[in-house]
């Protein structure tokens, strides 16, 4: 039996405002419990919400960047349910009239194809507080610092067909919200969270199967794993003659499985209705135009430009533009070094990215800044050092031993370009290996590499490889 997965994602992106969506309390992460929960966030009797202007602007930025409609009129509604981290007994959200709707995002598939994923809507809402279970004897502690933090809930169409596509979409969205500077994207701190709706159906079938909603998956890796597990689980259920139940499931990263959330709770009846404390949000053309003119270059446009301007492949351009910081870094390196774009790309995507990954840091925090890397590339370009030696220099720079020139100087890594010296080394190598010289001269061309290796070894890697090649050829063919 051939099955097809149908997946839609709901992403909650915390908007990077200074103050909360409906109050003047700070949104800073990590404060002592309840010190950033003001009267409005606590839902004290009599308090009222007033909407943060920046939240509306950020939603509009997102809408424009995803080719969506930014609604001229949107309405806040109350979603009613009782939970201790929800102080008012309702969450202020948007229901029938969201601020953004009907757009799309193009993602790149593994085969290089582009797939368009529909964005159904993106609406504004307030985040809830946090329940803390540890350290208390049989009770739960409630911290409402997070309550009222602005969220943009981005709902995709069920256009995704595999866990890989889902991750590609999520990564693209993650990159986009950071480009737009509307969300810091910090998944550890919960700034970017994902719920996945997963169902399966027989290939060729048009109707959707019954879906399960997997809640609160907080990393790209877990999204992929959770969805794959869920697809397998549903296939098993259906193939053994069972039926998928519409329910909310939780992904347990430790066991790598999804499990049903205990739902003795009745089917939710949220009793949505327009929040009478808030008025309809109206956005006019002038506002939209102002937002549009302030948009940065977006990932897709930047990628196209990188391909064109720097002669990069689609793949390289895609990797370099995945984050705005990386793209900015790359451009700064090219700008400062004036080296070939491809050389710069190789270094940024190669040595630099590997080192960043290894140390688990972001490019903004790289110990080698763009100017320093440019300095290194300049020395490769002017033949002061070889590409191979450059890696040694890079390591020393990473370890904080100074800039490229200082490292080259201190370690005496300057390339030997003096043809006399190189010739001397080649002659010594030829003398020491008469047998190989014989074989080479009788046609065993492959041995050329052996001689290059020997010369480089003799020069401790410092001989200019181009010169070595040229002179070696001459002398061997004598």
């Amino acid at each position: 039996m051939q099955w097809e997965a149908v997946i839609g994602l709901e992403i909650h992106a915390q908007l990077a405002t200074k103050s909360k969506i409906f109050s003047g309390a700070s949104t800073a992460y990590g404060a002592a419990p309840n010190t950033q929960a003001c009267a409005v966030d606590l839902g004290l009797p009599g308090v009222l919400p007033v909407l943060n202007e920046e939240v509306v602007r950020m939603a509009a930025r997102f809408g424009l960047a995803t080719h969506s409609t930014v609604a001229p009129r949107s309405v806040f509604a109350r979603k009613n349910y009782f939970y201790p981290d929800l102080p008012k007994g309702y969450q202020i959200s948007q229901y029938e009239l969201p601020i953004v709707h009907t757009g799309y995002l193009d993602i790149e598939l593994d085969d290089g194809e582009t797939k368009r994923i529909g964005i159904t809507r993106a609406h504004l809402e307030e985040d809830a507080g946090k329940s803390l279970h540890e350290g208390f004897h049989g009770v739960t502690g409630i911290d409402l610092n997070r309550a009222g933090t602005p969220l943009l809930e981005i709902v995709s169409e069920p256009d995704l067909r595999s866990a890989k596509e889902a991750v590609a979409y999520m990564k693209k969205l993650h990159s986009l919200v950071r480009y737009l500077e509307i969300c810091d994207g910090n998944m550890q701190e919960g700034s970017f969270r994902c719920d996945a709706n997963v169902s399966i159906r027989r290939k060729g079938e048009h109707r959707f199967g019954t879906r399960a909603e997997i809640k609160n998956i907080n990393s790209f890796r877990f999204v992929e794993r959770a969805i794959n597990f869920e697809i397998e689980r549903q296939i098993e259920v259906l193939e053994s003659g069972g039926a998928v139940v519409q329910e909310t499931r939780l992904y347990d990263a430790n066991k790598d499985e999804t499990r049903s959330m205990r739902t003795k709770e009745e089917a939710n009846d949220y009793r949505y209705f327009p929040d009478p404390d808030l008025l309809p949000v109206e956005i006019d053309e002038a506002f939209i135009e102002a937002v549009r003119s302030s948009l940065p270059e977006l990932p897709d446009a930047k990628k196209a430009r990188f391909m064109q301007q720097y002669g990069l492949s689609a793949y390289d351009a895609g990797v370099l533009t995945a984050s705005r910081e990386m793209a900015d870094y790359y451009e700064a390196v090219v700008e400062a070094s004036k080296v070939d774009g491809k050389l710069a790309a190789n270094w940024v995507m190669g040595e630099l990215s590997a080192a960043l990954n290894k140390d688990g840091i972001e490019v903004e925090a790289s110990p080698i800044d763009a100017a320093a890397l440019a300095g290194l590339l300049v020395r490769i370009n002017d033949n002061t050092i070889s590409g191979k030696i450059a890696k040694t220099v890079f390591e020393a720079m990473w370890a904080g031993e100074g800039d490229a020139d200082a490292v080259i100087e201190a370690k005496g890594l300057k390339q030997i370009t003096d043809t006399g010296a190189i010739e001397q080394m080649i002659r010594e190598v030829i003398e020491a290996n008469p047998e190989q010289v014989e074989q080479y001269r009788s046609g065993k061309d492959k041995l050329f590499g052996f001689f290059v290796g020997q010369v480089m070894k003799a020069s401790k890697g410092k001989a200019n490889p181009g010169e070595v090649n040229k002179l070696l050829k001459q002398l061997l063919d004598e």
Partner: protein
Amino acid sequence: MHTKTLAELARGLRDRSFSSEELTRHYLERIKRFDGELNGFITLCEDTALAQAREADIQLSSGRPGPLTGIPFAHKDIFCTDGVRTSCGSRMLDNFIAPYDATVTARFKQAGAVMLGKTNMDEFAMGSSNETSWYGPVRNPWDRDTVPGGSSGGSAAVVAARLAPAATGTDTGGSIRQPAALCGITGLKPTYGRVSRYGMIAFASSLDQAGPMAASAEDAALLLQAMAGFDPRDSTCVDRPVDDYSAGLNNELKGLRIGLPKEYFGAGLDAGTAKAVEAAIEELKKLGAEPVEISLPNAGLAVPTYYVVAPAECSSNLSRFDGVRFGYRCENPRDLEDLYKRSRGEGFGPEVKRRIMIGTYALSAGYYDAYYLKAQQARHLIADDFKAAFEKVDVIAGPTAPNVAFRLGEKVDDPVTMYLSDVFTIAVNLAGLPGMSIPAGFVEELPVGLQLIGNYFDEARLLNVAHRYQQVTDWHTRIPKGFE
């Protein structure tokens, strides 16, 4: 002193005929003497009142007093008062010392007014007789076996009995006007959005509005001046200049077109009340006003519409009372659900529970369209009726309540009959218009109220009409027997 108007009191304070402390003590003594019987106050603030009075006396002698500096007033217990219990008439908030001031409270403080105490009210402002209060019913000073009306029953009773020269009230479906009518005082519900709702414990957010309750229109104008104005903390509060409410009080009424909705004079209106209201309209005619018969064809929909909209909003507004961050918490909850259910079940009285349940039902899946959405549509029809009427008239006049004060306990077991006490006032809240009740005679020694309804933000004109009427009548100066 307690027979003086606010303006007279302010003059007395300014020319040092008496101090604010003397004035405050005078009212505190009256409260102690009479309120045991009336039960108009939930919390008396003797110490803070005297401290505020002394503070005001300094202001008065320094020569820069405002119109309310040193004037005592009673504050409905629905407004948050920092450091003072704010109960909303409910067991739920019996232990709630508010940690902040409502905007209205802050404005009174800034004006230098002296808060005598917090007045009794129907629980969470849900009631028309003040019998749903956790603190027991308020008695009508005109006849202690009758109700003062509600929900601002305490404020109305203490002003009527001259235990305070003025008070605040809130009006969601008639809660200022109906008790003002039943207690023979002047009460004004401003246009929705004219007075900040911040810190005023919400019953139904799209209907609630705070306003003044006083002996006369002139006094109400002074109070409203202090209360009205833009507040950035309330999204529904309107940013628009506030009129000078005292300036036009004496304007001529000549040529004023007064609309008389035929629906307000039909079945259901007590004959004695009708007679008094008609006589009041005759007086207005003598002052030059021209009556115009009008129709509000959807008037009959107002009460049923209200009893969907208000409970729907209240069911959500009152969810925050959950025993977690403030207010009543039940003893030894077994688990979270038990905490919620018993804290709310024990903390709220029966009428509040009824309304929460009606609202919950009206918003629930499968019923939303039939109830809530339909009511919102009906609300539009009702508002449109007024819009059409105000094309033809300047103000609308009619009875405030269908009857004079009824007996305590008379309607308490029959919610629907009780709800009909507000049959003439509710539509005004649904439309968001300003409305006023002024004393207009008596039926068997119980006061009758004349309701005046104005166009949006036309409070000044209502006060003008009321004041002119009060210049030629003396109903508003009458004081119930035993309280002189």
